[in-house]
């Protein structure tokens, strides 16, 4: 059994209650951090642990904290990005729903390290039932002296707020999230300046994913060495993977980074193999925005090595033969899946969710969707396939925020790996599935 950091006590009944959480040793990490560590020492621990941002980009958390402008006299903020809305990713929901105090404890530890006096949990509006659970947990924490003035008798004070979003995918992009939190239209900001210098209300801000923050109490309790002992290479610790698609056991799994992909898909401990014993066709390894990989490339790298669930191994081969860890939305497709139809679904999503601020993304996403709709509907031409590649190339990297990349990568990779299937659609003038 792999080490469980985030999901260890998740099955304990009534875990959302603060007393149950405390009975399992909850909030002892906070006590340890406040009594034994200075804020800089907490940052140092996180740096040494090798924890990387779990929202998708995998940026080292401690380094991100190190960028915050401590010279500025403005207040500093920690914001938790709970706007989980990537198709295929449903891991963060689980933490807030079943173990909200772990998130709150992590928020207090993180805020302490950054010297923030106020912190926000920006939560996706559709998770309305989770909002209630988190709000109740925040109230309990206030009553128990864990939030508010002089936390646990120390001279550190913090206010924590839970702010629901209004259902825009783009608000998961950190600067759009900050705009939305300020009460404005959720348009991503043009960077630089980065949030660590000019963030929420123009003050230095750190935005972290739920899973990243929820891992902090364990790191403080068990030490950075214990955390970095788990994992492989520069991918330390555990990661939540939300597995879905044509597998026998869809669900949320906590894996130690470095687990072979083959084991993850086929072992009974995890996905339990492909449904009905079907043949594996393709996998989207990290949520809809990462490149899709065919079976042979997801199980083994182009060099023939077994592919592992780690940031480096999944990315091996670049975008030619590799993909990305992303946010851990593991979508498995068997041989009955139409790649074009799947891609059309993704393209429709990105067209709908593009904020419309910059022209390549606004026009490119809708154009790609329309072309895919034509191909899937049997009216495509061979020229359309090359046109799609060309549009994707011009959207990628030319946009303000990564949504343009996220819309372009699936298109480019699907055509790269499954071109015959697109051509078949055009030749037959219908979908062969």
């Amino acid at each position, binding site marked *: 059994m792999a080490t469980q950091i985030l999901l260890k006590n998740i099955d304990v009944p009534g875990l959302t209650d603060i007393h149950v959480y405390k009975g399992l040793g909850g909030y002892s990490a906070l006590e340890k951090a406040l009594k034994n560590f200075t804020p800089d020492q907490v940052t140092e621990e996180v740096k040494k642990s090798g924890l990387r941002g779990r929202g998708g980009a995998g940026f080292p958390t401690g380094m991100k904290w190190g960028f915050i402008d401590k010279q500025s006299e403005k207040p500093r903020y920690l914001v938790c990005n709970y706007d989980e809305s990537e198709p295929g990713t449903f891991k963060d929901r689980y933490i807030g729903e079943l173990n909200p105090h772990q998130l709150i404890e992590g928020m207090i530890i993180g805020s302490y390290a950054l010297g923030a006096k106020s912190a926000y949990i920006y939560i996706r509006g559709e998770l309305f039932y989770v909002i209630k659970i988190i709000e109740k947990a925040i109230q309990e924490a206030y009553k128990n002296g864990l939030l508010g003035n002089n936390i646990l008798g120390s001279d550190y004070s913090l206010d924590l707020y839970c702010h629901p979003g209004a259902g825009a995918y783009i608000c998961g992009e950190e600067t759009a999230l900050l705009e939305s939190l300020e009460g404005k239209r959720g348009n991503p900001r043009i960077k630089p300046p980065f949030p660590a210098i000019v963030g929420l209300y123009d003050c230095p801000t750190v935005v972290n994913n739920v899973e990243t923050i929820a891992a902090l109490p364990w790191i403080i309790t068990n030490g950075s060495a214990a955390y970095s002992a788990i994992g492989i290479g520069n991918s330390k610790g555990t990661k939540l993977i939300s597995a879905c698609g044509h597998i026998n056991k869809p669900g949320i799994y906590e894996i130690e980074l470095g687990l072979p992909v083959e084991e993850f898909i086929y072992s009974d401990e995890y996905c339990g193999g492909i449904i009905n014993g079907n043949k594996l066709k393709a996998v989207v390894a990290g949520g809809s925005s990462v490149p899709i990989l065919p079976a042979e490339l997801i199980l083994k790298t182009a060099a023939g090595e077994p592919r592992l669930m780690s940031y480096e191994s999944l990315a091996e081969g670049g975008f030619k033969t590799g993909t990305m860890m992303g946010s851990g939305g593991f979508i498995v497709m068997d041989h009955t899946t139409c790649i074009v139809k799947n891609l059309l679904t993704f393209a429709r999503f990105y067209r709908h969710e593009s904020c419309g601020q910059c022209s390549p993304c606004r026009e490119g996403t*809708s154009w790609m969707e329309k072309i895919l709709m034509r191909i899937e509907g049997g009216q495509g031409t061979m020229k359309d396939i090359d046109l799609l590649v060309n549009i994707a190339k011009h959207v990628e990297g030319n946009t303000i925020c990564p949504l343009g990349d996220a819309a372009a990568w699936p298109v480019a990779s699907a055509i790269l790996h499954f071109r015959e299937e697109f051509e078949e659609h055009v030749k037959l003038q219908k979908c062969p599935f």
Partner: protein
Amino acid sequence: MPLLKVTIDNVEIEVEAGTTIMNAARQVGGHIVPPAMCYYSKLEGSGGKCRTCLVRVAQGSAKDPRPMPKLVASCRTLVQDGMVVENTTSPEAMDSRQAITEFLLINHPLDCPVCDQAGECHLQDLSYVHGLEETRTVEERRVFKPIDIGDKIKLHMNRCILCYRCVMVADQITDKRVHGVLGRGDHSEISTHIQQAVDNDFSGNMIDVCPVGALTDNTFRFKSRVWFMKPFDANRNCTKCSGKVVLWMKGEELLRVTGRKDKYGELEEFICNDCRFDHKMVTDWTIEGPRAIERHSVISQNHYGKQ
């Protein structure tokens, strides 16, 4: 403060710290200036949206000579000492500019023959230089009905490229903004809030800052093509604005009043609605003389004071 050395398309200049690549290029002038569809130097926070001004930075700075990994928006990127920028000399930047032009045009109605902006339209200029000769789209375009967003301003949303300039004008030079961008993505549109009309003394400047024909002057619509008119610099004593305007004359008739625009199409000064809409008699104005028009402009073909 020491000046920063920057090279744009092999032209070396020295500029003050805090200058953007776009403004550094404008100090040199000529063909090295990237086109700007959304950037407007008089509006704070503008730029970065249309992506037509993307350039390649071949060398980040003298200290860190690595090239920047992506093309950057020259209107929002500050120059560093020793930076080397490639605009027209970078095939990559030119290729992406062509693509952006195509993106801007795929939902554009191409109704230049009936559009009041034709002849002074930035999108026309852009597609003349960077556009493809053929269209690669077969899809239907977005269609909106033209609406009056104020009693003097007509909005043709079909033509809009969502540069946000009019939104910024309303934010920055009027006391209350009542219009904005509604919706998201390709279905976003400029509009007013429910049952509100744009009505304030400086709202007419929205028409002047609009790079395309999305916002047009109701008092001038369909009166004349711009190249049949002759522009004159004129002024009047105005209590609200500087009163310095351009009168657009056809024969003896004054058809339109606009602000004075510089060579990048930006207003020198914002003018009030009184001057713009309510003083359509030549006798209201003191005429200074013919306005200098760039020789390459189609407007100059009827003009005697060529530059």
